């Protein structure tokens, strides 16, 4: 009985990602005005699924558009939520108020909403706010860190955090990859819980990994 319950419990846990900014961070650096980006990412907290420790494969596809050199908008679709018969989307706005200069990193904030909608049923909306700081290291590498947060008002914790660190690598000119490590829900005890999260830190939260692929296109500069 326990084994089945483990599976039962692990699957809903992917929703943790849906609300805590599933996928990689939406906007590490700003787009240029008129520039677009298409990103697909997959990954999540590492959990014991039938005896194997794997990052839960939450997949997200997201489109961004640069309103100007500092601000942008985005919309994303949650592929695994679709597997539950749900429409999972997120949308929002990003604004980078600092550009990299010396030791000062590029710093931005991303505000948005993730909505999970059941056709003919209910819905769950989660407001979110992310902060991210990044450094470009040469032409090909970028490193970044920050924290994501999701807000809920009828269930504790009211704020679910997910601090992260990540790195990006430009493979070719329009194409780049990035990898993030996140600490999901660090304020929450990992046990007892009906999901066996494999990588807690100090018995709190769950560490996970997300891999992303990005394509850039469009823009006035072409």
């Amino acid at each position: 009985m326990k084994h089945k319950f483990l599976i039962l419990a692990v699957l809903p846990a992917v929703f943790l990602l849906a609300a805590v900014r599933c996928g990689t961070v939406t906007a590490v650096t700003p787009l240029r005005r008129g520039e677009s980006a298409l990103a697909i990412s997959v990954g999540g907290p590492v959990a014991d699924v039938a005896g194997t420790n794997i990052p839960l494969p939450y997949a997200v596809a997201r489109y961004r558009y640069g309103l100007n050199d500092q601000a942008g908008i985005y919309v994303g679709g949650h592929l695994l939520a679709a597997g539950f018969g749900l429409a999972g989307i997120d949308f929002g706005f990003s604004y980078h108020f600092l550009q990299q200069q010396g030791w000062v990193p590029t710093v931005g904030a991303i505000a948005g909403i993730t909505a999970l909608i059941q056709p003919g049923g209910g819905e769950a909306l989660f407001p979110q706010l992310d902060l991210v700081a990044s450094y470009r290291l040469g032409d090909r590498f970028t490193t970044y860190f920050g924290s994501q947060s999701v807000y809920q008002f009828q269930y504790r914790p009211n704020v679910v955090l997910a601090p992260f660190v990540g790195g990006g690598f430009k493979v070719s000119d329009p194409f780049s990859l990035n990898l993030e490590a996140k600490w999901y829900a660090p304020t929450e005890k990992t046990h007892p819980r009906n999901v066996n999260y494999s990588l807690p830190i100090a018995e709190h939260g769950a560490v996970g990994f997300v891999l992303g692929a990005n394509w850039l296109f469009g823009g006035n500069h072409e």
Partner: protein
Amino acid sequence: MNSVRRSPKSKVPNPKFGICVICVICGLLLFVSCFRLDSFLFEPTRVTDYLNPADMDSSWHVRFIIPDSLIEPVTLTALDGNHIYGFFVRQPAEGDCPRTGTVPRSPTDYTDGVRSQSAESAKSVDNPPENQFTVIYNHGNGQNINRYWGRVELLWEAGCNVFIYDYEGFGKSEGSPSGNACYADADAALAYVLARPDVVDSNIVYYGWSLGSFMACHLAADDTISKPRCLILENPMASTSALAKEGAVLAIPGSFVADADFDNEARIPFVGCRTLIIYGKKDDTAVPRRNAEVLLAEAQGWIPITGYPVENASHSDLPEVMGYDKYERVVSAFIVGDSL
């Protein structure tokens, strides 16, 4: 994403192809809906015959203490036409000679709880004692009646008649399990018990262990058919929503993850009888300890409810940790109405 910016001289890929691929994947997944959890909620096993000692696991603590003469096999017809199987275990009546050997276990036919003519004529107890209690036992999500027979023995030892049945898809019962089927099976079980002349309607007890708590609570929340003596929930679950919340740390409706309308949180305020929630404090299978506490909190102020936490007990060993005598004493005391 977008951690590396593109240089101005880059070539532009055709984005339409990528967008089309994403749309196709999303569309397929929407139609597939492959991750509904209902199939994970039930873990039945099939048998061709019940109560075969060779099929019993030692961890089920079956002692075979009930004389065969007191065990009546029952076949019910569910609303969808499927046959479901159960056993009515009665207390010895005056003149009974326990342990007199095997009796034929030919099922008695019932349809939607209405006894057939042959079953009617087979009845011998016309005036049941007023202090005779009958437990409808709604079992958990695994195995079949065999796995819960040790529990039936405990309740029988405590002095109760017991009716236990298999949900559709469990044991010999036809069909496949689902939330609606389980509720319909529970309704059929109640109708059957109410139709027995040797059962005092006001002395019926609904008992649910784990997943069975949903069926027991379902019966108790609808007192238009029968007002039970009391409701006993052992290591109950609060709801599928509570399970999802527990795992995801987020307020997610249960309907997002399962079709089954398993929601004791919503039903328990409408239960029309005294309720006992007995739970192990070390139960971490699906964290019913917290589930039990959620239910206790939901019911406070609405119904007379008693929580009975058991130290060191987990999900499946509650009577063993308590000791059989104490378990039986607590359950029978609650049924009678004594303080625990």
